[in-house]
């Protein structure tokens, strides 16, 4: 069998003839011979549809997913329960295939989704305004830094070392190309070292970024950091939050945040091999015109019927391009839709339940794991649904053993923090049962 290319040799010869080329190779003659591959690709002969299906299925079966394993891995992406309703609604053609409302006002369904999503995110974070979502948490966080630099006309952004290491890397990259100085503030006992923060926060600071609960799952003292931030002349207080935690924690808006960002995957989105996910960004009214992306508003049409309009996109790249502070104009529409359905389906009480169960189960797991003394707590601070423990055994050995028992283990903290070794970060969501946690504990005990 031959690969499926619909044009015949005759078709190709005719096309070459029209453009005055003798062979396909002529089309590449601008590329030096030394750079060209002078052999066929190392791919086996073509297979029939049936054969290729079987082949792919075999390959696919090598994967072990969270349907096969019990997941205690978090560190930014979480195995929360996803109501089946979400898949059904989100896979409707009009949602699944629509990209972005270019002819905005005739896309009433899409606009309504964005409006609902923005309303829910604003309510959840305690902020006035949300944009229509962004690529993911890290880029949303970087964009927040740019917003702060833009409004304050300052070029120094401070970020705590307890912020997810990958988020910090993305922020660093963004700041580097805007000539914004990024200062990382050390941590102490698993939280931001506020004394060190005080030393670097000054009147030239554009923004201060903290994660809550932080990368280690610990609750930061946001009130104190908020005060340090607002004691400077202009700096904006940026918090990177786990949206699920807002089911039990005070909203960032109530704690004086100016910009709230985060990863929205936990809200009804699958793990998707690490992406696509969505980032959310919500701000106080005063910053509404400075945020990337778009804002949808509600109004009435000439017949007095409820309708939706693209109200504001002051910093989008196609509006005064040279003034744009972001090149993000796409939003993660479908992921945002799923998170909106999630929030509506769970409701206030449901989200609270998810948060409380995650918290209680994480604490149960922590107590059981540390009971015998084989694994010790790395920090002694209040945590939400993730915690770090250490032992004499290497983390990869622990995880291998867990995997043999069909358990997806925790995150190796030594990868990102030089001074923390043999430490493992476990995440426990509401999905974990007592039996699953007890099994984790028993495997760890016999190591």
């Amino acid at each position, binding site marked *: 069998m031959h690969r499926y290319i619909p044009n015949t040799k005759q078709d190709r010869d005719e096309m070459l003839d029209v453009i005055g080329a003798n062979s396909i190779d002529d089309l590449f003659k601008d590329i030096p011979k030394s750079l060209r591959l002078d052999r066929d690709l190392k791919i086996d002969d073509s297979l029939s549809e049936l054969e290729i299906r079987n082949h792919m299925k075999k390959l696919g079966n090598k994967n072990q997913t969270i349907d096969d394993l019990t997941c205690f891995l978090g560190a930014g992406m979480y195995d929360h329960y996803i109501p089946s309703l979400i898949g059904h609604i989100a896979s409707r053609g009009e949602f699944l295939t629509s990209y972005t409302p270019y002819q905005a006002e005739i896309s009433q369904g899409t606009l309504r989704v964005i409006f609902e999503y923005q309303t829910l995110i604003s309510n959840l974070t305690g902020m006035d305004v949300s944009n229509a979502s962004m690529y993911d948490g890290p880029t949303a966080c970087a964009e927040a830094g740019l917003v702060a630099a833009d409004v*304050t*006309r300052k070029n120094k952004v401070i970020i705590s070392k307890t912020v997810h290491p990958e988020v910090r890397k993305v922020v660093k990259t963004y700041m580097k190309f805007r000539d914004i100085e990024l200062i990382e503030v050390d941590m102490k006992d698993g939280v931001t070292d506020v004394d060190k923060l005080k030393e670097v926060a000054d009147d030239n600071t554009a923004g201060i970024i903290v994660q809550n609960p932080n990368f280690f799952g610990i609750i930061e003292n946001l009130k104190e950091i908020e005060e340090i931030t607002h004691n400077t*002349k*202009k700096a904006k207080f940026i918090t990177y939050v786990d949206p699920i935690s807002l089911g039990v924690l005070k909203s960032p808006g109530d704690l004086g945040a100016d910009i709230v960002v985060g990863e929205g995957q936990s809200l009804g989105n699958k793990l998707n091999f690490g992406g696509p996910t969505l980032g959310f960004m919500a701000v106080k009214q005063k910053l509404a*015109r400075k945020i990337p992306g778009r804002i949808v508003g509600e109004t009435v049409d000439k017949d007095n019927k409820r309708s939706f309009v693209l109200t504001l996109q*002051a910093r989008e790249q196609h*509006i005064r391009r040279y*003034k744009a502070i972001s090149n993000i104009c796409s939003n993660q529409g479908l992921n945002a839709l799923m998170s909106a359905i999630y929030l509506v389906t769970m409701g206030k009480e449901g989200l609270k339940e998810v948060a409380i169960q995650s918290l209680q189960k994480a604490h149960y797991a922590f107590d059981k794991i540390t009971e015998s003394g084989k694994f010790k707590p790395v920090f002694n601070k209040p945590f939400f649904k993730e915690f770090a423990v250490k032992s004499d055994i290497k983390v990869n050995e622990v995880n291998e053993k867990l995997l043999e028992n069909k358990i997806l283990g925790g995150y190796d903290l030594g990868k990102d923090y030089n001074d923390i070794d043999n430490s493992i970060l476990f995440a426990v969501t509401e999905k974990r049962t007592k039996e699953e946690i007890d099994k984790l504990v028993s495997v760890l005990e016999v190591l």
Partner: protein
Amino acid sequence: MKTVEGLYYSSDHEWVKVEGNKALIGITDHAQHNLGEIVYVELPEVDDELEKEESFGVVESVKTASDIYMPVSGTVIEVNEELEDSPELVNEDAFGSWFIKVEMADNAKLDDLMDKEDYEKFCAEEE
């Protein structure tokens, strides 16, 4: 087109009202008329130091968004926050709606600006 005696005018259509070494700055009636219905005014912050001809804010109308430029160099000592909530005031009374108050760095720079008559001529030629 309305103009006011005793003010200085820039070719970017800002007006300057001088009081000692301080100055109030706004946009002219001619400018507000050409912009149309103004929906948003973005202002600098107090203590910002700005050079002459540097952009100090944005006026956004239903038609367009335009930068506004410093007619003089100076430090912002006050901004008219009322305009952030009620930008339509600029349409209603352009000369009564100052944007910022600055402490001027150099009074001599005022010589580059136009007086009422020159500005009227300038606008007539621009038409």
